[in-house]
């Protein structure tokens, strides 16, 4: 068992930990040693109090790499060598905790680099470089070759130095203080006392709360997001789901190679596209054929062609989820969907529309007649979706759906 520091991205904090757990359980990976008192902070909705640092124990680097191959809200996993709130502390720890012989030859025949990052504060390139150089006294830096971007090298050691300035960086008091300072400066300018130029930087610089020095084990899967950029997609709609959120949904839904996945409200097909990317065979349904097939040359399948994923699309079906066309028995491994709530797209189902004149299609028009649709109320949408999931998911299958949390739905 090895202790790792997981650094999350500062994005969608309420999903970060859940996504990690979902991916770990998908790969049957066990995680120990999480300080649960930190979880409310990690998962906090308020960005100002959420922290992206979480220690955990995992079996091996292999497990870490598996997790990182999927999670998009993890920046990376690191093995921490030293942790302190001063640079002297970091150097002392390196000197005290490791054998001098080992540490001075650690980089021998290796290519390495160091990255700097800070949480809660920004630094210029020069300051970053200066901070990295503060670690130079350690014998760790005495061997090996430094390269930022080596080509064709298997072993590239990437160090990361992270300064954590803590959570509440923009408290109201701090902001008020800053505003006051600005006003004072203005007053000074107005007084036009040009002779004395006092430096206002005589305040003692606040140091970081904590610093971590560690080796990168694996980076999260953030690169896959850009492949699905909405602006690159040929076929788009008003309800197309953000690629990052789609990937998170697929991770929560345990989509993996060989899975059979359904989206009963497919629309322009973001979820089926992403699930196909992760190796699932996908089926999409929609009541509105126009959403799936806009024109002959630009439709849901165009996006699959664009990314070379057409083999993974089983097909689309026009159907009404209030009377779904699936036979009895468990069929699907996961259902991932963004049901219509009548916010961006209206929810419809087949039924008598009271504004129409004819109740039944006139004789002779049976085939070309488009069925009348009526309003599909949100409780009915949800009830039908849950019933579908209960009946058609395999044991252990997963249902992932989006729910709006605007005041009227809470």
């Amino acid at each position, binding site marked *: 068992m090895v202790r790792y520091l997981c650094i999350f991205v500062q994005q969608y904090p309420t999903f970060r930990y859940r996504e990690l757990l979902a991916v770990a359980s998908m790969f049957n990976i066990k995680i120990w040693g999480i300080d649960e008192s930190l979880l409310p902070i990690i998962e906090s909705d308020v960005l100002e109090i959420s922290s992206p640092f979480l220690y955990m124990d995992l079996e091996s680097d292999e497990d870490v790499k598996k997790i990182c191959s999927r999670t998009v809200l993890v920046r990376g996993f690191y093995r921490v060598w030293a942790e302190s709130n001063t640079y002297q502390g970091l150097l002392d720890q390196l000197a005290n905790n490791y054998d001098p012989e080992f540490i001075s030859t650690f980089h021998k025949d290796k290519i390495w680099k160091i990255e700097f990052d800070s949480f809660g504060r920004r630094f210029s390139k020069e300051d970053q470089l200066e901070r990295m150089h503060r670690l130079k006294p350690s014998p760790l830096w005495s061997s090996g070759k430094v390269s930022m971007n080596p080509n064709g090298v298997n072993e590239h050691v990437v160090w990361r130095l992270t300064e954590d300035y803590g959570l509440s960086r923009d408290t109201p008091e701090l902001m008020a203080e800053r505003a006051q300072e600005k006003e004072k400066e203005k007053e000074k300018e107005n007084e036009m006392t040009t002779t004395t130029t006092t430096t206002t930087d005589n305040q003692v610089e606040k140091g970081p709360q904590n610093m971590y020095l560690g080796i990168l084990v694996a980076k999260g899967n953030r690169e896959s997001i850009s492949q699905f950029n909405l602006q690159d997609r040929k076929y788009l709609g008003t309800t197309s789901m953000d690629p990052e959120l789609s990937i998170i949904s697929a991770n929560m839904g345990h989509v993996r*190679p*060989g*899975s*059979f996945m359904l989206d009963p409200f497919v629309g322009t097909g973001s979820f089926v596209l992403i699930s196909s990317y992760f*190796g699932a*065979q996908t*089926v999409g349904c929609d*009541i509105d*054929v126009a959403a*799936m*097939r806009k024109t002959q040359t630009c439709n849901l399948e165009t996006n699959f062609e664009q990314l070379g994923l057409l*083999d993974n699309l*089983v*097909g*689309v*079906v*026009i*159907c*009404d989820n*209030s*009377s*779904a*066309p*699936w*036979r*009895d*028995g*468990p*069929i699907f*491994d996961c259902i991932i969907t963004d049901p219509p709530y009548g916010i961006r797209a209206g929810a419809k189902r*087949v*039924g*008598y*529309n*009271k504004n129409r004149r004819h*109740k*039944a*299609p006139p004789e002779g028009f*049976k*085939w070309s*007649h488009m*069925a*009348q649709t009526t309003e599909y109320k949100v409780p009915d949408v949800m009830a039908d979706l849950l019933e579908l999931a209960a009946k058609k998911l*395999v044991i252990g299958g997963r249902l992932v759906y989006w729910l709006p949390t605007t005041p009227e739905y809470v």
Partner: protein
Amino acid sequence: MKILTHNMMACTKRQCVGRGFPLLLEVKDVSKLEQEFNVEFTKNIFPKLDWKGITMVAAQFNLNLGPITEKSIEDEEFLKNLYNLLCNVKVMTGQLTCPNCQRVYPIDQGIPNMLLKEDEIYQDIQPEQQQQ
């Protein structure tokens, strides 16, 4: 519509629940695909298939899958043929007919239309709506 989709579908009418499959398939236009054999998926889908539907469609396309036993899931050749039938046959135009109520569902441009007409829906309609 790939044959796999056909195998999963049934008539959507309430009265046909449990009796509305396999849907009879009538093919006007079909296209053959060249997808690579996906063994992982075929093994996953194997236990969920409706074999009555498979044998029915296989006979329609003159494909001989050979005898189907519980050991077929280990038989690579069988799985390959099965995958070819499920995922490499795409019905572009045609229709599906419910074996129970004879309702016909059209397939157009490769997409089956499983929508019922409004008068076929059995749902709780408000009395005042019915009168209008």
